[in-house]
């Protein structure tokens, strides 16, 4: 398989950075980076929800997605919905009835695979905030290119030139797929291949997240 423009192979992810607690005020926050794509998430909660927004059995999750310069549009609303529904499957909601967990995602640098980066940042932010989760979750995007190849973690150029971009969110405990969106037209075989590639790549992300969390625990323990 030919190497990609930045020298990566088809299954190679860009250099990732996972930083915990970049923000002070938020209960939990995380910065996640896929190469030149950078996203910050801030989590407040569980906290008291407004009367209109409360559920007497479970906690409610709200997600806000902000872009750098541009105003929010349908793309942002769609991302908010995808992340919210994925987090609803992940968070132990029965633990905090009548509460609201507010997740805000801010795009700092746009370089492709934004939704995947945003979802990763949101999940790590929740862990940092101390919200109970059933399991960790990692998201990766796959670009299906016109020449038949599949490029993992595409940058903006590859996304623009792809026939379809598939973003998959994988649960750590059993490799189940929590979210899968496909932007474009693609054959069944290629779609399944992309999902499989994303599932394999998610293991790298889990390792990175666990390392970051363990490092943070170590620093916290040292402080006490």
């Amino acid at each position: 398989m030919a190497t990609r423009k930045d020298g990566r192979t088809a299954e190679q992810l860009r250099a990732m950075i996972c930083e915990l607690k970049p923000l002070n005020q938020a209960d939990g926050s995380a910065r996640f980076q896929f190469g030149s794509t950078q996203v910050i998430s801030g989590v407040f909660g569980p906290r008291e929800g407004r009367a209109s927004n409360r559920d007497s059995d479970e906690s409610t999750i709200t997600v806000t997605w902000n872009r750098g310069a541009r105003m929010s549009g349908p793309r942002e609303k769609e991302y908010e919905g995808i992340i919210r529904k994925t987090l609803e499957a992940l968070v132990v909601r029965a633990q905090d009835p009548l509460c609201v967990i507010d997740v805000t995602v801010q795009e700092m640098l746009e370089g492709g695979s934004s939704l995947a980066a945003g979802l990763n940042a949101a999940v790590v932010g929740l862990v940092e905030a101390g919200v109970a989760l059933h399991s960790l979750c990692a998201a990766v995007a796959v670009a299906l290119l016109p020449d038949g190849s599949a490029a993992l973690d595409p940058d903006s150029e590859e996304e623009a030139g792809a026939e379809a971009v598939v973003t998959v969110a994988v649960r750590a405990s059993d490799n189940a797929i929590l979210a899968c969106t496909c932007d474009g037209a693609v054959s069944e075989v290629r779609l399944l291949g992309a999902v499989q590639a994303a599932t394999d790549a998610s293991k790298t992300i889990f390792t990175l997240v666990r390392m970051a969390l363990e490092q943070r625990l170590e620093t916290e323990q040292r402080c006490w």
Partner: protein
Amino acid sequence: MAPSITTLSEQAFVAQAAREDQRVDGRRLQDHRRIKAQIGVQPGNVEVQLGTTRIFAVVSASLVTPYPEKPSEGMVVIDLAPSPMADPSYEPNRWNEDLREARAVLQRALIRSRAIDAEALCVVNGQLAWSLRIDLKVLDNGGNIIDCACLAATLALKHFRHNEVSVEGDKVTVHTLEERRPVALTLHHIPLCVSFGLMELPSDENKGLGEKLVVLADPTNVEEKCMQGRLTVTASGKDSAMLYGIHKHGGAPIGPEVVLRCSEQAVQRAMELDEVVDG
């Protein structure tokens, strides 16, 4: 979303410390917090941290038709938006009074003071001009958003580049970034806001304490909730004789000597900040 509440004991602690000319984080009354600025890879993307306050600035430009009453000038718009992650009381898409005031201060500092050369933004008189948009997002509210936002905006403007446009008769060509090197903005001066918190401590006959006005430079969010007023002075590092704005919207009444002292401190601070902006 719960409004931020300061406890009575917190307020009493800050007031007591101020009476003894001390501050909660160990600074002296006239000390400012550390600044960390990160210039992004894309020109015009800047992240600035003042203590724990963190603001993200993005400058973007587009070609538009200039206003009919100002055919030879471009336009500049500033937007200061809160991100819900910045403060427990911020709500998305909700009108925020403090940020409205901060935005007005920034507009006067950057636009009304004519810091950006609006005529240099004009491409074809009456037909085509650049419209600049400075988007500031508050990511973390640790207090003193105005100073941090102003620094972020000026750094972003300084590092922003727009495509070069060439005009030949009737033909206007916008060159891509690969064809011609992008052009920097013309800035007449670099305005920097310096804010002071005003704490009016009441007299206490039982303890034999008189009334006292304490001025805190660069207030934190805890101090902001305990103070009774704010004074913001906009100065430029290069031109110490000129002040580009003084803002005091209500709050504790102060004498002219306080305004003078703060203005001098502001000019001093602007010269220090100038090194950050240039470096």
